């Protein structure tokens, strides 16, 4: 039998931590442990993402649950010698709270995790994603077992009772969707998992796929049983190579053990899953475009109805849900609908994973009960805004969403309240912006994205987003006119009303919501040719202040020789020549160069 390991060292192998260097830590640890002949009593496990990517690479030592951050291969010696041999915690590698700078030794005490309720992410970072045994040990496939002992109709009812709604953006009740596909009469039906996570700023699906792939397979199999399908597809972005690798591995394990395939758990139910790699088109996140892409065609949406539940992939009834939605299904089946339904608000049940990014101390993934306030997420979990800057807005819902200003920070977050505030849940990307972020530039950024990703099938989206982008470019360059704001609003209205799919229907949202809350910034650009945040390069100039000591560094770094001045006297920038690259400001050791 396997020797009992007294300690487990969990090293995060998520994409965030791997790119910070966690890949080098595992071999270093193993080598050191072997050298100390402790190879069999300490187990080294590569896990999925813990969500606190900012602090990666993360290393957690159990049974104590000590949480080490930003670990380098050079630190491995000290962790083994002091912690694993002598039981002394390596203080200097512990996590420090950004607000108080207190060191926090254990996982559960870190404020980033304390307010979270990890449900869909329960296993992420705690099990080895390449081990079926560890998933089963964490109650994996128990939900499927329970579902198979019920009637398919009862499974649909259970999901309906849980109140689970689509986590990919739309928020459509999942149980109802399943029921539609269940009622469609056909000899062949499909289940599709939408893993084409394309919203810039959202990466929860990637984390689930990389950190707990079996959970998604189990959710899909339960769905297949409930709706009467024997075949599933996962449509995953090709930009997620690690997720695809882990999924392939998980599918192979499940097939080998009989958890996928024929006669699953002796129930007579058959289910297989294939992976389709996306080819880089944001619009393929839209369900009809996604199915066109699986069929090998250009991924363009088509009008609905017919809905996929009646006529989907290859014309057959098809149920599509996104990764996070499927990830919630196994535990709903296992623990029953009532536990899930006890979390969250009246209309939005359960938990939601948010991706915290931008100008925030703890970037990463946070899973919280619906109904929590934005302030709790940004300040209590996210640790607030870095460098003492002032919060300006948080963008939620990606290119389809909107910005919430400071006065809405205490809004309780659910599907409905966000729509009312002019934003939307979307996939749950939260990008925090501080006083140095220009809201017009943010709107332009998203329009640039949607305009680029518009598939071109329908005119309002293809032409409309282009015209809106031109206007926004004009405003950012200080060439806007007073008619531009009403023109933007009227274009927005037409695009929302006339576009074929959600991409176009929601594309104007970032503009409308910034116009709603930050109209003064637009007006400053247009009327005063001024960017209040100092972000629009055409509208800022750099000036050298009296703090200049004449060291000449700026002169050297300037790519266009716009700076002149004698050594040890105050230098000056020729505004005509300056290309506003900001290199001088970054280089100045005396902070003598300001944007003005």
């Amino acid at each position, binding site marked *: 039998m396997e020797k009992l390991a007294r300690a487990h060292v969990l090293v995060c192998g998520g*994409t*965030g931590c*791997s*790119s*910070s260097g966690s890949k080098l830590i595992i071999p270093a640890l193993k080598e050191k442990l072997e050298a100390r002949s402790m190879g069999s009593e300490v187990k080294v496990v590569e896990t999925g993402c813990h969500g*606190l*990517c*900012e602090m*990666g690479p993360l290393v957690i030592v159990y049974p104590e649950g000590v949480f080490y951050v930003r670990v380098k291969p050079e630190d491995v010696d000290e962790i083994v010698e002091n912690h694993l041999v002598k039981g002394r915690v390596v203080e200097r590698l512990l996590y420090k709270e950004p607000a108080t700078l207190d060191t926090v030794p254990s996982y559960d005490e870190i404020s980033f995790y304390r307010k979270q309720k990890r449900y869909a992410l329960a296993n992420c970072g705690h099990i080895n994603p390449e081990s079926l045994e560890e998933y089963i040990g964490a109650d994996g496939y128990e939900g499927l077992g329970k579902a198979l002992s019920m009637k398919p109709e009862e499974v649909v009812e259970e999901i309906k009772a849980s109140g689970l709604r689509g986590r990919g953006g739309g928020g459509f009740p999942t149980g109802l969707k399943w029921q539609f596909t269940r009622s469609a009469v056909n000899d062949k039906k499909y289940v599709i998992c939408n893993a084409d*996570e*394309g*919203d*810039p*700023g*959202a*990466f929860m699906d*990637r984390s689930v796929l990389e950190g707990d792939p079996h959970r998604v397979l189990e959710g899909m199999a339960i769905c297949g049983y409930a709706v009467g399908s024997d075949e599933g597809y996962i449509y995953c972005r*090709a*930009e*997620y*190579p690690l997720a695809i690798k882990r999924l392939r591995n998980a599918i192979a394990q499940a097939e080998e053990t009989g958890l996928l395939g024929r006669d699953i758990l002796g129930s007579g139910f058959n289910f297989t899953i294939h992976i*389709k*790699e*996306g*080819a*880089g*088109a*944001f619009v393929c996140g839209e369900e009809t475009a996604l199915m066109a*892409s*699986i*069929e*090998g*065609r*250009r*991924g*363009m949406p088509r009008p609905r109805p017919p809905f996929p539940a009646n006529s989907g992939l*290859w014309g057959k009834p098809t149920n599509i849900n996104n990764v996070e939605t499927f990830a919630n299904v196994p535990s709903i089946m296992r623990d029953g609908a009532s536990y899930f339904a006890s979390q969250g608000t009246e209309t939005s049940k359960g938990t939601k994973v948010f*991706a915290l*990014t*931008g*100008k925030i101390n703890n*970037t*990463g993934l946070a899973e919280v009960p619906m109904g929590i306030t934005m302030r709790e997420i940004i300040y209590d979990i996210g640790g607030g805004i870095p460098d003492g800057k002032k919060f300006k807005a948080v*963008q939620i819902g*990606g290119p389809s969403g909107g910005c919430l200003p400071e006065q809405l920070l205490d809004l309780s977050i659910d599907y409905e309240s966000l729509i009312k505030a002019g934003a939307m849940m979307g996939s749950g*990307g939260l*990008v925090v*912006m501080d006083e140095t*972020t220009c809201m017009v530039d*943010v709107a332009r*950024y*998203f329009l640039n*994205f949607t305009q680029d*990703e518009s*598939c071109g099938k329908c005119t309002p989206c293809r032409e409309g987003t282009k015209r809106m982008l031109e206007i926004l470019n004009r405003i950012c360059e200080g060439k806007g006119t007073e008619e531009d704001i009403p023109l933007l609003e009227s274009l927005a209205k037409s695009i929302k009303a006339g576009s074929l799919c959600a991409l176009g229907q929601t594309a104007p949202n970032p503009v409308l919501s910034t116009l709603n809350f930050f109209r003064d910034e637009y007006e400053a650009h247009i009327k005063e040719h001024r960017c209040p945040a100092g972000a629009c390069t055409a509208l800022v100039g750099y000036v050298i202040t009296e703090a200049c000591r004449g060291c000449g560094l700026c002169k050297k770094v300037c790519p266009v020789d716009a700076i002149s001045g004698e050594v040890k006297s105050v230098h000056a920038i020729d505004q005509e020549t300056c290309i506003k*690259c*900001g290199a001088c400001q*970054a280089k100045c050791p005396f902070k003598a160069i300001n944007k003005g």
Partner: protein
Amino acid sequence: MGDKLAEKDFARLDEVLADLGSSKGTLIPVLQKAQDIFGYLPRDVLVHISRKTGVPLSQVFGVVTFYAQFHLEPRGRNIIRSCQGTACHVRGAKGILQEIASCLGLEGDAVTTPDLRFTLETVACIGCCGLAPVLMVNDETHGRLVPDKIKGILDQYK
């Protein structure tokens, strides 16, 4: 492109076609594999795929030009993907992109260095927002970038 496409590469492509050709919806996987083999999708390859699969060339071309992943021109040995996602955008991705282009001496619309060492692309989001701004070279992700770090990163790839 003066280079002759190799016979043996077409033989490998035929294996892929034999392997995938029989089931439905395989055009995109076939094109993905073909691009792995040839590095890009030259006209002759598209014609070959069209003939073997019976999918009209116009349709093959339509699919190739729809998806950002497919390329009609030869590409560098190392592919740099500079992330322009929201989180990267607000943390200075634009400056990183400029720095890469200037390190590589790329001007105007050029994306590939003449020696085919690098191709520079932008990507909407690689889901690594916690480390913004980020870039990927081939399958490796580099995060928490500042312009000064770029040259050192690029020097690692020959």
